[in-house]
């Protein structure tokens, strides 16, 4: 409103003596805030430039082949990004496979089923999960979850699927406890509150009138959710999923603890693997030689590019969903 007002040729009231010195301050303040705004943009561009510069020696040495090469040998300085990229993709996929239905279920429970009095305590408890630092998840995964998986869950899985063609290869090998599956599981717990809170927000945008009308003609809670709320929130839900995927792709500490840190692509989900972020976290301080450091920088650049695309798509979808209902996501 103010911007419109100031563009009109109206006589501004004269400044009182107490505010005379504000005129210079006014200009300066505007300039300072504008500079800070531009600085935020510069930061993002700066991150990209620094990563590209750091990664350049690796791409110069290995070329585009770097992306599809699965060897990682610091001794002969031969590096390829395929194993970490594969691990990042698979762990995030497992995480979303588990967290997406769970998160939507919790969001539906909170918005449609739960008594109003319980809604706030439950949503706060779920959001506590988001507040716990990722390194705590890593410790918990390594010392509490992994032994349970190793001693009870994984042997059962291996025994259960040993005869099933296809799945037997996916769940083969000795039960290490740590590995790709465990990393996916921890990631699922970590992104669950994010999915839940964004999904709750977009479910809440479904107009009450529509829901009341559906209940009025005798629809059940599930039918109201399935045929009124969900179609209304579809774009927002996809946005929430992508936002969570972006978070899972870049998560570092929790994964480093439980993924096993082995540079190989294994067909079995129980085998140890690695991810882009875990590789960087483990090896960067020990990377001697220009090529080794550059290869890790190149991994970081790939990770940044992937998450950038996923997060940008998520924000655009959520923006679109918000515009439909006139709300900011």
């Amino acid at each position, binding site marked *: *409103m*103010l911007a*419109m007002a*100031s563009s009109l040729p109206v006589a501004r*009231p*004269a400044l009182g003596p107490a*505010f005379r010195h*504000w005129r210079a301050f006014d200009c300066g*303040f505007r300039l*300072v*805030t*504008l500079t*800070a*705004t531009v*600085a*935020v*943009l510069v*930061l*993002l561009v*700066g*991150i990209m430039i620094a*990563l590209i510069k750091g990664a350049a020696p690796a791409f110069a040495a290995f070329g585009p082949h770097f992306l599809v090469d699965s060897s990682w040998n610091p001794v002969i300085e031969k590096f390829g990004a395929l194993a970490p990229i594969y691990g990042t993709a698979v762990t995030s996929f497992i995480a979303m496979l588990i967290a997406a239905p*769970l998160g939507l*279920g919790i969001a*539906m*429970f909170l918005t449609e*089923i739960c008594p109003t009095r319980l809604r706030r305590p*439950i949503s706060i408890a*779920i*959001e*506590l*999960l988001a*507040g*716990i*630092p*990722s*390194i*705590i998840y890593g*410790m*918990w995964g390594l010392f509490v979850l992994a032994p349970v998986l190793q001693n009870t869950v994984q042997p059962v899985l291996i025994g259960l699927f040993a005869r099933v063609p296809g799945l037997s290869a996916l769940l083969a090998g000795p039960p290490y406890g740590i590995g790709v599956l465990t990393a996916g599981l921890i990631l699922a717990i970590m992104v*669950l509150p994010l999915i839940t809170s964004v999904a709750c927000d977009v479910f809440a945008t479904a107009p009450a009138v529509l829901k009341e009308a559906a209940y009025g003609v005798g629809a*059940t*809670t*599930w039918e109201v959710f399935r045929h009124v709320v969900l179609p209304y929130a579809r774009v927002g839900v996809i946005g929430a999923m992508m936002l969570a995927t972006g*978070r899972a792709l*870049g998560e*570092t*500490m929790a994964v480093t*603890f439980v993924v096993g840190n082995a540079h190989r692509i294994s067909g079995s989900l129980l085998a140890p693997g690695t991810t882009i*972020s875990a590789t*960087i976290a483990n090896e960067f*301080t020990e990377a001697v030689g220009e090529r080794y450091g550059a290869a890790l*920088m190149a991994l*970081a650049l790939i*990770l*940044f590019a992937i998450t*950038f695309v996923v*997060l*940008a798509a998520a*924000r655009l979808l959520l923006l679109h969903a918000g515009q439909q209902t006139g709300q900011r996501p």
Partner: protein
Amino acid sequence: MKRYRARRRRNAVAVSVCAGATLLGLGWVILILLALLREGRSGMSLAVFTEMTPPPGAAGGLLNAIVGSLMMTALAVALGTPLGIAAATYLAEYGRHGRLRHVVRFFNDILLSAPSIVIGLFIYEILVAPLGHFSGYAGACALALIVVPVVVRTTEDMLLLVPDPLREAAAALGLPRAAVITRIAYRAAGTGMLTGVLLAIARISGETAPLMFTALNNQFISVDMGSPMASLPAVIFQFALSPYKEWQALAWTGALIITLAVLALNVTARTIASARSRK
């Protein structure tokens, strides 16, 4: 009637699956907190706060890590908050109708969820590598980069909640734009902005990845931010993955301290925000 019963049955299944999902989510929270309490409580003693991190096999505390974490967090907030508030002020006040606002808001939201390990590598490239050594300053800069987008987002949201008639009334009284913002809008949005800063502190106090290549770690107490500095998350990472029982016990205690601090910050921020919305 038969179809109605089938619909009711399907509804009952859906509702119980959702309730089950919620119970599972709540169960996870409880399991993690219980494990932290069980493993971390026994090591909680005064020595944790008064003694240095020990060599393997000896008893000790986490004093240097706690001091390092506090110093780097404080500097990061001191660097990141003014920048974030200034940028948010432009977005919500001066540039509210401009094109720059959409662009910056979009990229700020991406920065908000960008992998923190990439931020650590960025600071390594521009600060650590050119200067030739790890330092507490570099660690604080990396953390400040995480503070900025959080503060920008919350401050802008809070400024936009301030009703325009308030600004118009102040402008009509002859207040210059800068005075309208600093004396009226900031004051009206103050508690909300404070909430944002508290949430940013909660976010960075558990961050490990951006510190590993910037502040590194330090076995001894150091208040010199120009040299490598210990931090709670970095010490937890090192100790938890070590084979020594004493170190692992200290890691659990450190994990408990961080979690309690983060949860306390979250609860405080939430209480402030809800007390404000009730007014």
